[in-house]
């Protein structure tokens, strides 16, 4: 079903392992540079070698009165400020701007595991305010308070599909006339909890990851935030601001199969891709690029490849696909939003970002693996697809905006 109001993207903000800002992200992708770093056992809570995508830039923001900002909150606020500036929105306070921000760990990024052994003792030692940032909704609260915007604040947590789903939900608010402008995205900091969790599942590759490669051995954790400004297209045109992209279609689905493993045939993900294209009113041949979920885990990447085979079966040529998690690591709740921004930047620059270290790809006739280096190409529609633990899938279809400026 088509939305009643077209949804424009007028602002983007990103904090990634490349640094702060969309420009350093774009520069890294254009230069096909990895932002991952190998961390030796001595510098790592796991006490074993790991590869991580850490944000080295300073994201220090003073705590507003009465509010503790976790690292996850700070990443989100920095990205949101850039998005706000990009969109040339008026200085806050701005009434009725919903804030939809996803996270998986939220304030848990700042809480040590030992806090759960004797919580009262941890609180008495000064942890009370820190624990108040625990709720996922706190990230949206932090963004709204720090930017001075009023309106709905929605927290979202759907594992690694979170950031993309936040964008879809905010887009629906605009499409259905419930809002005319919204901030949406995701944020997650690397935490000891997630490091321990993915390590326990044997999902981490200690070396830089190789999404879609037959020798892939797991993912690399990263951190960051991606926030977009979504706006009713007529409102954006009335403000005479550049439209970076138009979010034409989105769809959500669930495999309903397993807590951590995807459907090995990729049926749920394919369903979300097909429905998103239907909503966008585009055919499989219209799509020029897919930014993949592409974690680098053995199960995900083969299931995802099958999803592309299903969803693009009627296409006349293989669909160009890449995973930029090979550049940034897997930023969990932020990944879907950061990768949506990558898709938007790719459209704007008419560029296909690469999968790094992909030298022996999964065999399929359906996919044109973009590997090694960024590729320039003329295309009008780009997609970003995300999936996560709990079997949720999200697909977003963007159309190139009038702000395209090939460098």
């Amino acid at each position, binding site marked *: *079903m088509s939305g009643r109001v077209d949804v424009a993207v007028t602002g983007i903000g990103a904090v990634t392992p490349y640094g702060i800002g969309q420009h350093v992200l774009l520069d890294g992708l254009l230069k096909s540079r990895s932002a991952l770093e190998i961390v030796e056992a001595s510098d790592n*809570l*796991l*006490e*074993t070698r790991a590869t991580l995508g850490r944000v080295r830039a300073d994201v220090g923001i003073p705590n507003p009165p009465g509010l503790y900002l976790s690292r996850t909150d700070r990443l989100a606020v920095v990205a949101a400020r850039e998005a706000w500036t990009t969109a040339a929105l008026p200085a806050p306070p701005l009434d009725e701007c919903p804030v939809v921000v996803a996270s*998986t760990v939220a304030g848990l990024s700042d*809480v*040590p*595991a*030992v*806090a*759960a*052994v004797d*919580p*009262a003792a941890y*609180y*008495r030692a000064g942890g*009370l305010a820190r*624990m*108040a940032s*625990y*709720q*996922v*909704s706190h990230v949206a609260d932090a963004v709204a308070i720090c930017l001075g915007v009023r309106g709905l*604040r*929605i*927290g*979202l*947590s*759907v*594992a690694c599909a979170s950031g993309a*789903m936040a964008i879809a*939900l905010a887009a*629906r608010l605009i499409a*259905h006339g419930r809002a005319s402008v919204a901030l949406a995205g995701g944020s997650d900091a690397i935490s*000891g*909890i997630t490091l*321990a*969790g*993915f*390590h*326990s*599942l*044997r999902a981490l590759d200690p070396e830089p990851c190789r999404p879609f490669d037959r020798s892939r051995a797991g993912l690399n954790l990263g951190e960051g935030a991606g926030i977009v400004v979504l706006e009713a297209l007529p409102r954006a045109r009335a403000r005479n601001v550049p439209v970076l992209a138009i979010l034409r279609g989105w*769809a*959500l*689905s*669930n*495999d*309903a*199969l*397993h*807590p951590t493993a995807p459907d090995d045939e990729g049926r*749920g993900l394919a*369903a979300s891709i097909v429905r998103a294209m239907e909503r966008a009113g585009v055919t499989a041949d219209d799509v020029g690029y897919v930014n993949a979920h592409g974690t680098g885990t053995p199960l995900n990447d083969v299931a995802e490849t099958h999803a592309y085979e299903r969803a693009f079966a009627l296409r006349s040529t293989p669909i160009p696909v890449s995973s930029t998690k090979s550049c940034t690591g897997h930023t969990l709740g932020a990944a879907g939003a950061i990768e949506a921004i990558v898709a938007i930047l790719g459209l704007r620059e008419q560029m296909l970002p690469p999968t790094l270290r992909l030298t022996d790809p999964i065999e399929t006739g359906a996919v044109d693996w973009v590997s090694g280096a960024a590729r320039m190409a003329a295309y009008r529609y780009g997609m970003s697809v995300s999936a*996560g*633990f*709990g*079997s*949720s899938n999200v697909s977003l279809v963007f159309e190139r905006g009038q702000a395209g400026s090939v460098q």
Partner: protein
Amino acid sequence: MNDQSIMLTGFGSVSAFGPCRGLMACEPGELSRITRWPTPGPRRARLVPAFRPVELVPGLKTRRIDRLSVWGLVATGLALQDAGFDAGSTDGDRMAVTFGTAFGCLDSTEEFMVSIARNGHGKADPILFPEMLSNLPASHVARHFGMRGPNVTLACGALSAEAALAEAVAELRGGEADLAVVMAGDVLSRALFEWYEESSRLAPACLGASGSLMGTSELIPGEGLGVAVVETAEHAASRGVCPYAELHDIDISPDPGDAPLFITSAYTGEFWSTGILGVALALGRLAREGDDRFVVAFGNGRGHAASTITFRIGEDFRR
């Protein structure tokens, strides 16, 4: 009624009143003593009593699943029974799950953190890790009941339940699903209870003092989870199910006006995401009293807003 009408056709819950199918017509009982973790003295709250899930939902497997997920599975099973749902009546692709929770799976999260603190980051429990994710309850429900449509977990503090209900309505009205299971709930864990205690927010009755519980302004923590089955009027009619009510509106505002208030936490204890249980209780009490009017459930919106959920109860609806 029109093509945008949304019907409430089934309820299920797990709360201090135990598991319940359908509307609730309960009165607040005594507080329960906390025994799940060591306490410095008697500590009390409104706690979910022990029960056997498989006796309520045949075939349910809940071993090593987070308590919140177990409640979600049980309450969904009861709500679907209440809605007269036949698994073959609806395409799984057209069934959605929305879940509202302020804190998510606290039990598994705290257990996982304790395992890290005791064994080190490199030796954590792989079963616990996914179970601590906030969206796992909704995922378990989707898997068990074959619901392959949108699956969304929202965290909006004390408005989490209302957000989940609003999300389901948007999905149904937007044509993304025909039927949605709306879940909302939270568990009371050691870290949360001690946070309340260290913040000096607890009612004296929670700390062992005697006295009246009604009307107290201090916090009495609770826990539980409510499920509502909502569907489009067309879909409900096609199944031949008689709804409890038509959803009229969900509004977030500081002033609920002169509509009758229903303070859910007085019955269930405060656990933030009480909204769906509030609807089941409010509808249950009004239905019992034979009142036929709009019902309002009222929640605390983090100090700056309140939720107002209004319904139409028709003469031809279920009682």
